[in-house]
């Protein structure tokens, strides 16, 4: 940070007249000590000003992942917070999801989590269980963190073994982004609540049968291959009365369940109903890189917040449909889109809690942030924000309310620690299927074996 004023005042040693060499020559042991201590200083030099505060000034670090729109809005909200708290400076950093998760894990391992960190649902068990997050209970109790207007079930997703470690930043749900114009061309009715996986497959078949071409003359398929999504599998599984995890160290399904799911998507791939291997393997989480974003498929399985990336890319005919059901049973649930936690080693937990409270509960912050992280968890803010929404954002907001009426289960317990890894493994193992290096059954066996090693 800034140089300390003390340094200037000390007289410059170079100006001092030199004493004869023979007299100042230090004993060897002393010389060695000098070299060593100089080295030690060098080694520790990086941590010069670790306190983060000087003269009553407090510096907070705040990190998140997201797209450009989210970065812009969040920075704006942070500016407002700084204006209201002149003694607090917030240093922000952000990245895309994958690099963010990796960086955060390294920081957490070094005991150096940002003061305020945006967290994924999957990270809660890992971080809370290893004491990298601060217990927010005292701040909730003292009223520094207001949670009165929060949905209780949603709030509980930030708790781990009875302790509130994080607060949700929004609620969201899964669905299918689909291009209504293409559906109409193929003579398929817009998806209705309660539509089945079979109807979903048939819709894709009808679209593929149109024989449309995407850029570079590639065939335009009905669906993005959702076999790569652990989340999609979870919905499919839940609609069959099972779940991803039975407990902290046990899967809630068998290799046969997974083989059935992958056989279903693999067959559709062979028929040309879903995206082809080379396009499926480029799915990275960013809407632009997936088959639908590249104008090669008419639908994509997605969470509602990223869905907002599609209309600007593909036009107003893109809408959001509920997840298909199995004989009317939906597997969908409302999940926290992301959460906010405070680092266990934060030196300014009070100010960090203030920042969290501001982002989640301040009406002005709510206006700035909008629904960029899903429907706000504070229901008053959500109500307030919803009034100004239009277009796709309005559609999503209404969808969230509608989905609740179709019947959704409460969110399952936060996934166990290993899930951060397993989510990545899921799509990677499925690549063995789409490139026809393994049968769905073999791949499912490999995944389940890996999951069991990961969870033990």
């Amino acid at each position, binding site marked *: 940070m800034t140089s300390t004023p003390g340094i200037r005042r000390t007289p410059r040693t170079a100006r001092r007249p030199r004493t004869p060499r023979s007299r100042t020559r230090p004993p060897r042991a002393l010389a060695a000590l000098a070299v060593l201590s100089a080295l030690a200083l060098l080694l520790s030099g990086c941590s010069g000003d670790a306190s983060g505060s000087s003269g009553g000034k407090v510096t907070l670090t705040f990190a998140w992942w997201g797209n450009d729109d989210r970065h812009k809005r969040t920075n704006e909200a942070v500016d407002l917070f700084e204006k209201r708290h002149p003694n607090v400076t917030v240093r922000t950093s952000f990245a895309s999801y994958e690099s963010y998760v990796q960086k955060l894990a390294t920081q957490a391992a070094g005991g150096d989590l940002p003061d305020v960190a945006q967290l994924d649902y999957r990270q809660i068990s890992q971080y809370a269980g290893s004491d990298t997050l601060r217990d927010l209970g005292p701040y909730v109790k003292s009223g520094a963190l207001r949670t009165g207007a929060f949905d209780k079930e949603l709030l509980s997703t930030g708790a781990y073994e009875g302790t509130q470690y994080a607060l949700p930043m929004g609620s969201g749900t899964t669905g299918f982004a689909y291009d209504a114009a293409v559906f109409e061309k193929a003579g398929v009715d817009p998806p209705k609540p309660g539509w089945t996986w079979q109807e979903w497959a048939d819709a894709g078949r009808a679209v593929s049968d149109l024989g449309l071409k995407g850029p570079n003359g590639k065939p335009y398929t009905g669906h993005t291959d959702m076999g790569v999504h652990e989340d999609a599998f979870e919905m499919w599984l839940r609609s069959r009365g099972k779940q991803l995890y039975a407990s902290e160290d046990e899967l809630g399904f068998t290799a046969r369940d997974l083989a059935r799911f992958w056989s279903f998507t693999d067959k559709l791939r062979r028929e040309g109903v879903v995206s082809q291997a080379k396009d499926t*393997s480029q799915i990275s989480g960013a809407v632009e890189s997936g088959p639908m974003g590249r104008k090669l498929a008419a639908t994509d399985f997605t969470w509602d917040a990223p869905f907002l990336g599609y209309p600007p890319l593909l036009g107003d005919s893109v809408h959001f449909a509920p997840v298909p059901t199995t004989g009317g049973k939906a597997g969908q649930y409302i999940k926290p889109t992301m959460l906010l936690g405070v680092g266990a080693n934060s030196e300014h937990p009070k100010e960090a809690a203030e920042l969290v409270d501001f982002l989640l509960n301040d009406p002005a912050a709510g206006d700035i942030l909008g629904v960029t992280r899903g429907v706000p968890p504070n229901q008053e803010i959500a109500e307030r924000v919803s009034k100004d929404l239009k277009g796709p954002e309005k559609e999503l907001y209404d969808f969230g309310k509608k989905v609740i009426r179709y019947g959704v289960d409460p969110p399952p317990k936060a996934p166990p620690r290993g899930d951060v890894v397993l989510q990545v493994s899921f799509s990677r193992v499925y690549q063995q299927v789409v490139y026809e290096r393994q049968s769905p059954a073999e791949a499912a066996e490999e995944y389940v074996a890996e999951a069991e090693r990961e969870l033990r």
Partner: protein
Amino acid sequence: MTAQAPPPAAAAERPAPARDRAAPGRRRPVRRERQGPAYIFLSPWILGVVLLTLAPMAVSLYLSFTDYNLFDPPKWVGLRNYAEMFTEDPRYWRSVGTTLLYVVVAVPLKLALALGVALLLNSMRTGKGFYRSAFYAPSLLGASMSIALVWRALFNDGGTVDELLSGVGINTGGWVADPDLAVFVVVLLTVWQFGAPMVIFLAGLQQIPTDVYEAAALDGAGRWRQFVSVTLPMLSPVLFFNLVLETIQSFQVFTPAFAISAGKGGPADSTNFYTLYLYERGFSASHMGYASAMAWVLLLAIGAVTVVLFRTSRSWVFYANEEG
């Protein structure tokens, strides 16, 4: 460390300390007195070796017998990491296979290209300096992430290579997304960086005395004969040096694979090189114990391969002083 009290280790080295003391004006004690400053000046390097190399290695060896996720204290699991690696993890063997394929293909190709270009440059009369720099440039740039990213863009779906091939009717859909071709994108990137061994070959070629060639020519040897009977044997120490160096480096290939597969080793694990998998286990999946075990196996494997290379070298590497 003064003259009056020599350290016991130093004293033990010398067979007759009494004689030294009897003759204080002789060379040895003076040299001993000057050792102190030498060690002080060496201390940064000694500290570096101990703190940055030996200590981490010891810790890594210890960690390889533990389950360590970076957050909780390491749990001792004995040989389980090694057992899991060899018996339960199909990805481990896939990464071994990919790495071996890469070493076997990339090293000979790269050396052949380096030698070929070195031969061409050696026979050139003008512009040698320019071409030498031009061919060496990729080696300087190649280690960087940015070149690997450019390479990825070239061979990606819709990239330049794909477009050019599509232009002549071969539609690959991008090499990067093809599990059968992706590994060769990495191979090509490595082979393209043949500059470093080339420069060494060039130096070796210039060491070969011209009169040997003249003698061979007088005996009626053609260019090919000269190459096989003169150049190759005379160059064999340099060839051996390059072979060992490149092999060791190839086992540790990381940056290009990381960049070309966006850190994932895909598609379908086809570019999941050993070091990439090691990195993923350690830093993405937080299994530091497992990653450490992998690192030690790699170290042993490279050691073994190097020993084998040295053994075989006895039959094909000729040193000038042996021939006499």
